[in-house]
């Protein structure tokens, strides 16, 4: 079998090697584009003291929220953690560390981690608590702060379609943080809705080239909706 067949057949294989104290990067925005079954597997493994880098932390009983519930997360690096009462409770009880990071900075930190850029300057957060203790430099008369790259021992991403090379495409706003997380994991695991034949994905329109992906698994998704807002049919 070719070294480019990255398909694994069990969730145990997909998350093999995950250990206590590791850093896990996770794509997803709210409950959209999350790795439902990989997260379940992390819960099953019971590994502790994880640092999880993800824009949000799911809800109490779904998504990353279930790892808070089981107290497997030591620290979250996120931009927004509302919508999760467990989170608030653990934070106020000092059971959880959190590093609040502006959403765009978080996305760029992961991209930088994958792209060999150890640090970059941004105006986001200048003069706020986010800028505390960070180097400030002036460019063209404006102040910017230095933000450093993020990488992870594991990255978990959710894609729409993938092939055995690890090429991935995402669907609509389920893309979000997944492409950046994919680039920044030492081991990147992709959970896809549909595993397609090699050559089926148009090479012009691959969101994540297979070079970034170590393991691929096809999953079944619930795709829970957080806020179901509708227009009345005319």
């Amino acid at each position, binding site marked *: 079998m070719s070294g480019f067949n990255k398909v694994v057949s069990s969730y145990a294989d997909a998350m093999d090697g995950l250990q206590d104290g590791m850093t896990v990067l996770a794509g997803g*925005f*709210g*409950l*959209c*584009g999350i790795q439902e079954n990989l997260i379940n597997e992390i819960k099953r493994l019971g590994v502790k003291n994880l640092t999880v880098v993800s*824009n949000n932390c799911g809800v109490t009983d779904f998504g990353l929220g279930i790892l808070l519930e089981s107290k497997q997360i030591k620290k979250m690096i*996120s*931009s*927004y*953690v*509302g*919508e999760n009462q467990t989170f*608030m409770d653990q*934070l106020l009880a000092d059971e959880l560390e*959190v590093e*609040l990071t*502006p*959403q*765009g*900075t*978080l*996305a*760029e930190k*992961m*991209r930088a981690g994958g792209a060999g850029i150890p640090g970059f300057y*941004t*105006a*986001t*957060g*200048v*003069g*706020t*608590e*986010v800028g505390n203790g960070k180097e400030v430099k002036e460019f063209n008369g404006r102040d910017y702060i230095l933000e450093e790259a993020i990488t992870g021992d594991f990255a978990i991403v959710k894609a*729409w379609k993938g092939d055995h090379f690890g090429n991935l495409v*995402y*669907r*609509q*706003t*389920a*893309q*979000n*943080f*997944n*492409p*950046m997380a994919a680039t920044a994991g030492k081991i990147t695991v992709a959970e896809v809705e549909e595993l397609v034949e090699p050559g089926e994905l148009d090479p012009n329109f691959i*969101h994540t080239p297979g070079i970034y992906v170590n393991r691929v698994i096809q999953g079944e998704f619930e*795709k*829970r*909706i*957080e*806020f*179901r*807002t*509708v*227009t*009345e*049919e005319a």
Partner: protein
Amino acid sequence: MALSREQLAMRVAKELKDGYYVNLGIGIPTLVSNYVPEGIEVMLQSENGLLGMGPFPVEREIDADLINAGKQTVTAIKGASFFSSADSFAMIRGGHVDLTVLGAFEVDVHGNIASYMIPGKLIKGMGGAMDLVAGADNIIVTMTHASKHGEPKLLPQCTLPLTGAACIKRVLTDLAFIEIKDGKFHLLERAPGVSVEEIQKLTAGELVVPDNVPEMDL
């Protein structure tokens, strides 16, 4: 009379120009899309990775993969595009969005804004708000002029942790439309039937009042 949420949205909508790319924050800003003036087209950017956001879907169109930054189900209009969070904030940080409308807890005379945290009470995170206020040249803050208990939210100095420093130039409240410059609030317009005195009473930061303060045209 203080403006209703809908009236706030209507007043903001008058600032839209044809061809604008606009980011609307959660809450009142979202309502602005209902009042886009006749003959004007704007395209809405949703920072979770969508340019060309449309209205909420009808029941049969609902798609878990298509949400806005408030995690609500939405639709995409013709000409829309989807992209990653890094690409989305490249747009925002790079100053490509023409107008950003967002809410706040407090704004001060230096153009500082506090909108994401109340220590000890509310720790939800800044989401994309810090990037939005740092990346946009053209921002309108919408909020009530004072809290439910009558405490001013337009201050000499913000008391809550800042979302951004020296970045806000225009604030629309339920009572007034205010410009911030030279370390002062400048009263531009008042809500229909609201007196300058009422506005003055509920504004803690220094307020410059010109001789004539027109009522808003809604």
